[in-house]
């Protein structure tokens, strides 16, 4: 009997690993990304942004050197009119870069008629899609790490101070959050590249989703809050329920998750991202910074949320791609 079961299983199971050829795809796609004109433009854009905002921040910070224990983190968050802070720029540069890397991932292969030729090689579709996604994620990591190092260089050069270990740790966590925030948009653009045959349509759809979350989602969230839990008698409990609902709804947006992660990591004095009752503040020393581990604990849900959303979106794209007929 076990022999038969085994024979049956081997008959049903697909032969070999689904990841055969994965690294060949990753290497090729990364080489494409890094040499493409599209990437050059984005690199110039992001380097300009970094240099511009850090220069602005430094002009501000030079006056307060020595008064702030977290000077380096201020490089990210200090704005100098008319430029917003570096993190403000990141909020829309990250989605832009991610979408640019992935919006033509699958439909581009269709339109160049390379898909059937590549899939006729001894690999599974799994390897092709995951390879493209990983290549995008690695490219994002590479670019953001380079920017991160650039900021440090500029910071040491301009401020004349080395960063503390705590600051390095915080900004490293921030880097991780940024990469997975990018991962969400990368996976989303990839889903659209499977769904739409025209790359332009896929790009537009991705940007539409991004605009929806950036501009309209907050309005929609507060509107929904008002409808779902209206304040009838003005009781404290009602206000509490409503505020919590509003926070919950707005956290369904990747932008909120990322903004909260950014806030807690780059501002060590932030101790809570939700409602705080006066009773909970008893004994707290206001304005005292949290240690890194506590800040990470604070944004742990946000961070896992970002990663989970990335994985879910990738799984959706994966499912759609597996079912797609490849005939051009």
């Amino acid at each position, binding site marked *: 009997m076990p022999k038969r079961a085994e024979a049956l299983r081997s008959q049903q*199971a697909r032969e070999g690993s689904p990841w055969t050829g994965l690294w060949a795809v990753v*290497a090729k796609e990364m080489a494409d990304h890094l040499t493409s004109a599209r990437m050059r433009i984005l690199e110039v854009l992001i380097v300009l942004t970094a240099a511009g905002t850090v220069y602005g921040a430094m002009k501000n910070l030079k006056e307060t050197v020595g008064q702030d224990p977290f000077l380096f983190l201020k490089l990210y968050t200090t704005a100098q009119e008319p430029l917003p802070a570096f993190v403000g720029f990141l909020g829309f540069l990250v989605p832009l870069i991610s979408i640019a890397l992935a919006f033509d991932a699958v439909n581009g292969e269709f339109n*160049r008629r*390379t898909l059937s030729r590549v899939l006729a090689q001894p690999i599974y579709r799994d390897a092709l899609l995951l390879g493209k996604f990983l290549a995008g994620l690695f490219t994002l990591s590479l670019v953001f790490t380079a920017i991160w190092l650039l900021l440090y260089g500029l910071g040491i050069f301009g401020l004349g101070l080395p960063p503390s270990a705590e600051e390095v740790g915080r900004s490293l966590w921030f880097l991780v959050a940024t990469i997975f925030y990018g991962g969400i948009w990368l996976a989303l653009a990839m889903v659209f590249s499977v769904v739409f045959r025209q790359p332009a349509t896929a790009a537009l759809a991705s940007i539409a989703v991004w605009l929806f979350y950036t501009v309209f989602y907050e309005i929609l969230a507060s509107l929904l809050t008002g409808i779902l839990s209206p304040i009838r008698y003005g009781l404290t409990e009602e206000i509490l329920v409503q505020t919590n609902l509003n926070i919950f709804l707005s956290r369904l947006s990747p932008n909120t998750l990322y903004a909260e992660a950014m806030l807690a990591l780059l501002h060590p004095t932030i101790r809570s991202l939700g409602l705080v009752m006066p009773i909970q503040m008893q004994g707290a020393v206001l304005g005292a910074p949290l240690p890194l581990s506590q800040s990470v604990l604070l944004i742990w849900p946000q961070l896992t949320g970002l990663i989970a959303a990335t994985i879910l979106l990738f799984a959706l794209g994966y499912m759609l791609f597996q079912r797609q007929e490849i005939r051009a």
Partner: protein
Amino acid sequence: MSNLVIETRDLTKKYDGFVAVKGLNLSVKPGEVFGLLGPNGAGKTTTILMLLGLTEPTSGSVRVLDLDPARQPLSVKAHVGYLPEQVGFYDELTAYENLLYIAKLNGLSRQEANRRIDEALQRVQLTPVVNQRVGTFSRGMRQRLGVADVLIKQPQLIIMDEPTQGLDPERVREFLELIHVLKGEGITMLLSSHLLHQVQVVCDRVGLFRRGQMVLEGTVVELARQVLGGAYRIYLEAEGPANAINKALTSMPGAVNVRQLENNVYEVEAEHDIRAEAASTVVGAKGRLLKLDVKTQSLDDIYAKYFEEVGHAKAS
């Protein structure tokens, strides 16, 4: 163990109610060049995709190189080369880079890949443009690069979908020559095409596709006999008593049909080459034989005749 390279039994594929391939029984022997012929949309490409495991059959069974493409796609795809219709390449990469990617996907080492790429490019005479971007290639060069791409994995079976489409006559001739050379090396090939006269030259056997079904199968001569009655058409020009000549030719053994085309021109459809007999028959009927010619049937005739008949049958 069957010794067939491709074997399908009652292979059927349906797309939401539409039947693309219906009850296909196809067998291709080792070393054979088989032509899948039929108009666009007859189910040729769907059949090919099922052979490669790129689409799952709705019902029926497929064996390619004695493997099941749906369950063992990696082994099948490692030994079967596929040249898709209007093959595409990464335009921004060079010919070498394009082939290197394919070699890597096949798990070849860098050294082995380089050796095979050199060899394949030499075979298709693209060595001089190895480091040129594919974006600059002409249609014919792309097609040849497609063949090089297939040769990288040293396949036992090559499947080509409409390989001569969009090529000018000179390129077509070159391409068919290349197929001929590959055939000489013992590689089994399956070609799909709707350009019959081109494929006829290189195919050992052909199968005629219509609405997802293989309606005719065999060598070109066999098909001619089936569809046109005679595989040979003999043209005679003879002066003399028309009635007597006509009668004598008709009663000749092997003659299927005799028609008088012009005053002194007769057409004899025959199952085999009976030129010598026809000549003596004409002389025997007191005719003066002026000209004798034979024409073997082309696939185009078969095709036209077959679909004409089917069309008529449907109309009535």
